[in-house]
């Protein structure tokens, strides 16, 4: 075969054609950029990212609400919902890249402080909402307020409270009500004998992180002081709290709690096994759908009181606006409108999202004061005052990157679990946890 064929592919020709094709492909965005960017500039956009809410109806409401606002203001709004576990990684990626959504919805207390340098100052926004809808709660301040220069890095949106949910008929049988943590231990032990243990997770997840903090605070212990400068965990009060946790585990719970995820305690009470859990009302709402008889028997009350106070951990949500965001003004305007309609957000979340501003949902609160799906209808009434018995990690000080790392490392859960399982005494366990917290706080103070 020696005849030349002009159409055959030679090495040279392959290289030449491929190079031309690649060059054309790379040049096309450059050539089209002026036209494309002009077209994009004509359409204003607002991009929002936030977690996929536990109440799917809330996400539906929010998407429509944002879209409607966009239509009124000729702004194209897009909302991305991501799994709660991905929020931290997404925020880190957007901050590192210097590009991303205009409005970022955080889930986790210390984020506003961690990303402070990347976020615009929203002090005037928070103050204007405060003027209209009343004082910001302790949680709101913990989340977004900067004590050093009296500014706000984030707009505090809501918090999720962790009330006690107990099976009324079972507690009535033993003639008790879980008013105090000691009641929970004593009554729980009796009910465990009857096959209905208390269900508070000692695993690595959000629920135990908030609940055991609540126990620690109720006994007078805390990770840090009010200024957030010193670790105060190694105290007599903390040891008492850990001793209580160990006793509660041995007397009123089963070893199952060591493996639990956030869904496990919900399943535990909804299946009719548990006599008491500490959880957001999602557990009760699920029971209403799955097991009406059990749901009617689940009563919701303030968290049990400790020897020092009644206080429980909460999960916080807030919005930050990136400095690199292209539509900061639109983001601020959206948040103002959102605050003005916050009561609708509250209803859409079935009372799951709790208000940060004192009068943004006037009392008696819809749903919580009179829930037509509950028997009795005022079953959720105790939740109306949850701002008085809720705090986020960092209490009595601010939520900071350091307190968030203590939270993310599950140190308080492990402090309780080590004593509960007998791996350490209560004193040793508190010392271990205090050393861990000290190392983290010192590290962050040094870095700051």
């Amino acid at each position, binding site marked *: 075969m020696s005849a030349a064929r002009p159409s055959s592919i030679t090495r040279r020709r392959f290289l030449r054609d491929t190079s031309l094709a690649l060059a054309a492909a790379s040049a096309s965005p450059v050539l089209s950029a002026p036209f494309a960017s002009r077209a994009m500039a004509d359409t204003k956009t607002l991009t929002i990212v936030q977690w996929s809410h536990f109440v799917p109806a809330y996400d539906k409401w929010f998407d429509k609400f944002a879209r409607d606002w966009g239509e009124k203001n000729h702004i194209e709004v897009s909302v991305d919902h991501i799994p709660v576990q991905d929020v931290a990684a997404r925020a880190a990626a957007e901050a590192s890249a210097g590009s991303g959504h205009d409005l970022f919805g955080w889930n986790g207390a210390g984020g506003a402080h961690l990303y402070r340098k990347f976020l615009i100052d929203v002090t005037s926004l928070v103050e204007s909402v405060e003027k209209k809808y009343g004082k910001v709660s302790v949680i709101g301040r913990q989340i977004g307020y900067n004590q050093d220069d009296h500014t706000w890095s984030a707009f505090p949106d809501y918090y999720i409270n962790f009330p006690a949910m107990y099976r009324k008929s079972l507690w009535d049988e033993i003639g008790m009500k879980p008013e105090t943590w000691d009641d929970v231990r004593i009554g729980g032990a009796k009910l465990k004998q009857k096959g209905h243990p208390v269900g508070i997770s000692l695993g*690595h997840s959000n629920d135990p992180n908030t609940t055991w903090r609540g126990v620690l605070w109720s006994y007078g212990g805390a990770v840090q002081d009010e200024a957030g400068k010193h670790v105060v965990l190694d105290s007599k009060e903390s040891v008492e709290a850990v001793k209580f946790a160990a006793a509660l585990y041995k007397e009123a719970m089963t070893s199952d709690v060591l493996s639990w995820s956030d869904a496990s305690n919900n399943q535990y009470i909804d299946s009719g096994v548990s006599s008491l859990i500490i959880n957001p009302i999602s557990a009760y709402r699920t029971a209403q759908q799955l097991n009406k008889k059990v749901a009617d028997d689940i009563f919701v009350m303030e968290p049990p009181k400790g020897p020092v106070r009644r206080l429980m951990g909460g999960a916080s949500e807030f919005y930050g606006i990136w400095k690199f965001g292209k539509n900061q003004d639109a983001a601020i305007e959206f948040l103002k409108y959102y605050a003005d309609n916050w009561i609708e957000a509250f209803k859409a979340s079935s009372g799951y999202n709790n208000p940060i501003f004192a009068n943004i949902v006037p009392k008696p609160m819809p749903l919580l004061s009179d829930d037509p799906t509950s028997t009795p209808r005022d079953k959720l009434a105790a939740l109306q005052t949850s701002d008085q018995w809720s705090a986020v990690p960092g209490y009595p000080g601010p939520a900071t990157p350091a307190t968030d790392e203590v939270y993310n490392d599950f140190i308080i859960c492990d402090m309780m679990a080590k004593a509960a399982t007998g791996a350490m005494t209560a004193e040793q366990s508190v010392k271990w946890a205090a050393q861990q917290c000290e190392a983290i706080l010192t590290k962050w103070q040094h870095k700051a």
Partner: protein
Amino acid sequence: MVTIAEPGTKAASRFRYILDRRETLGAIFVAPAILYVLLLVGGPFLLAVYYSISAYTIYDPSWRFVGLVNFAQVIQNPVFLKTLGNTFLFTFGSQLLGLILGKFGAFLLMRPFAGRKIVRALIILPWAVPIALAAVAWEWMFDSLYSVINWSMIALGIIDRSDAPNWLGNPHLAMLCVIIVNAWRFFPFAIVIFLAGITSIPQDIIDAATVDGAGFWRRNYQIVLPLILPIVAVGLIFGIVFTFTDLSIVYLLTNGGPINATSVLAFQGFQVGIVSGDVSHGAAISLFMLPVLLVVVIIVLRFIRRREV
């Protein structure tokens, strides 16, 4: 096939001449791969090294040089030392189990039986199924309330409900669980490696050994295994590297619990560096994997070369 060169300028013909040179063309073809490795592996690696010796956090993204302080602080933390030990146990435990399962799986799949092709396709499933999906299934199997394993054992009268194992709640069992899940994920790969190795052995060697009176075990350990060892070693390198740097199973199944019993380096590095925003310490934790992996790779590669010689 011959093509007729078109007439062109002097410069163009020089360019063509360069393209005709084997080494030049080879370099051009290899360049994208090298560029890819340099940009997407080398670049991030160097960045991670620099992060680990700086004070870089999301709160304060400064590049202030701090030397080895981050490493010193990390080593002093007892939780890190536990995590380091867990990582070794998780990696080598799951590789060992995966190799054993892979070997038996390969032998089974070499035997002719009805539906072998379907079984061969199905056996790849653990490898192909997204780990997030698989982890949910495993979580249900190990669940403290609804474990199908416990339910079966209770139904068969093997255990009492009160004695049912707390798979993810007992520190030792929790580690066993993550090892089992990782071995389950790895063993299809091991089967492929073993099958490739075993089928490459000339049949006459096996026949000669059989004629000489070698039984199954002798053939297996004195002929088959030594012959396929180099290819198995390469598979093992992959397995160790991927497992040592993996956080997905621990993240999805246990979150490092109970009481850090299943926390591994990749998980801790992610929690500290990404979730908590302390990038420099996160990078330092992650870089502890590097010397270990380097030593493992060097040992295995030297072993392979020695066997080839």
